[in-house]
């Protein structure tokens, strides 16, 4: 049951670095737009720049960033886990071969 966390942690780190490099700005934009759309339903369209609307846009931006960053981190962790599993299997084979040759 005990899992080697290291490959997943490295993968998650790479995922987060990738997020910062390519996806931070779009995540802010998409999240802010989602907040704007929600505000449109709540206060009616066309939306005016009131405190509530601004708050919803900032809330959307926050969720957008956390959501997309999570996706990158989780995808990175899963990829790391997969690489870790492959390396573990690859590391075992020579031992098995060695034993069978004895």
């Amino acid at each position, binding site marked *: 049951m005990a899992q080697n966390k290291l490959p997943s942690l490295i*993968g*998650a780190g790479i995922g987060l670095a990738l997020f910062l490099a390519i996806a931070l700005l*779009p995540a802010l934009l998409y999240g802010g*737009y*989602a907040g704007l759309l929600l505000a449109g339903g709540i206060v009616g*369209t066309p939306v005016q720049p009131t405190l509530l609307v601004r708050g919803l846009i900032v809330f959307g931006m926050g969720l957008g960033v956390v959501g997309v960053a*999570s996706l990158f*981190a989780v995808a990175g962790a899963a990829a790391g886990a997969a690489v870790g599993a492959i390396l573990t299997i690859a590391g075992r084979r020579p031992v098995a071969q060695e034993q069978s040759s004895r």
Partner: protein
Amino acid sequence: MRATLLAFALLLSTAARAEEAKPAPALPADAESCLMCHDKGGGAPEVDFKAFPGSVHGQAEVGCTDCHAGYKEGPHEGELPALSAAEQATVARLAKGAWGEGEAKHGVTAPRAYLACQSCHTTEADAFAKSVHGKWLAQDTKAPGATCASCHGSPHSIPAKLAEYAPKDGKRVPVPADRREMTKRCEACHGNEAFAEAAGLNPEAVITYHDSIHGRLTRVGNAAAPTCVSCHAAAADAGGTHAIVSKTDPASTVSAANKKQACARCHAGATDTFAGLVAHKPLHETGGSVIPHIVHVAFSWLTTLTLLFFAFHVLVDFIYELRTRLAKKGGHGPSADAVRSVIRFDLHQRIQHWFMLSGVILLGITGWPLRGAGDAEAATYSRAFMKVFGGAEGAATWHRVGAVLIIISAAYHLFYLTFLASKKRLPLSMLPVPKDALDMRDNILFMMGVKKERPKFDRYMYLEKFDYWAVFWGIVMMVGTGFIFWFPVWFASWAPGWLITAAQIIHGEEATLAILFLFTVHFYNVHLKPSIFPMNWAWLNGRISIEAMKHEHPLEYDRLKDEQNG
């Protein structure tokens, strides 16, 4: 060193000679005298003589006085031939006209020259004269309308003849790039709020177009997505783009009677209901009923309140986790209970989850870029990201693949439940019970430090039950409404318009809720929580450690232990 310098010198001299060898762009034979005053710094209105030779008119060897008829050495007052009364009236109106090029606005400086357009472009000029855009040249209107330059740009620099574009019934003909580019010129007037109001036009026509599915598809680069002329231009043999008339005119392609035929250019079999779905109005105001509006408000509240509550839950949980971690003293390494594990999810459940997660992620990453394209800046990223899937059309195909994956998952799960029920092994542990509400309250109070004891959870705690039932709700909403977009014409052939509009609203709102909930709340609970990071491995191996079971599902642990002890 000398050799290198020599080589450079030779290279540069060759390049310079090649530059010299290029023939200078030819200006019309009669242009020399015009240049004296109309070139930069000449004092008279400036003409872009550099662009002219490469323009379609320059290529056709049109001379200056072919359009500026009667102009001689200047000053021109008094040297021009007399005009008829009708021509004088047209020139007087043209003199009030203006046209835009990007941000720049230009007044019409040589109105008489526009009379010459019809000499070569007779068919187009005749169609234009009868169109809604040309009406202002013959009668008084609220505001000056379009000139040739409004759509084609300066006659001195029109780059080339526009590519042929004639939409055919039932075939999605790609809109040529130059026609797409021309849309900006439509927007220069129809998207200008002040002008639109002065001219009595719909000031939101451009905004609502970009918010619509057509506008979003255009922004993400779908080659066949319709632009203004796709719907509004008359048939090619009836004058095409030059013959656009008001929608109140029975001859208009978008008049009440003809609109479905305009839709049928891309959507074969379009009905009046289908045609009524595109109306240059906010989505919740189309469909001819108040229901879309109610759905819009209800789903906006549902999405906002759900996300606010669970964001609060995640925040409280995260702070609690950090506090616990900081307070924890160094242990003695992993206990035996951390190593021993039991099966929590069987292979069928894991396969269902794999289908579901791959489908949902695929739907999210191919769908949200399109939804987000309602924002012009975000659309740039959407367009770039969709290239990963082979462009907008490829992303649409992958989106449907995602839909099929979640349908397979849902069907598999229902068969699985039916099978378990037939064997009288259907677990009821996922059913919501009143204790869940109390558990939720007590758990939040515990994490906030108000209560001293954490409530004891059974096999599934309230968060897991919410995840499970939210998927049921989500599948019904997303798949149900998604099918309507997949086959919109068929649905519109029998369903009321408000149902299709409501479906469009639900699909978008539910996508926002689902994606933000799954990527923030669900991912936090099963992957990113400090005590779980990088992941709860149960989704891969189906197992839970005895230690985790004791901590997270103590009631289940006690029950299993009692069963084991007999």
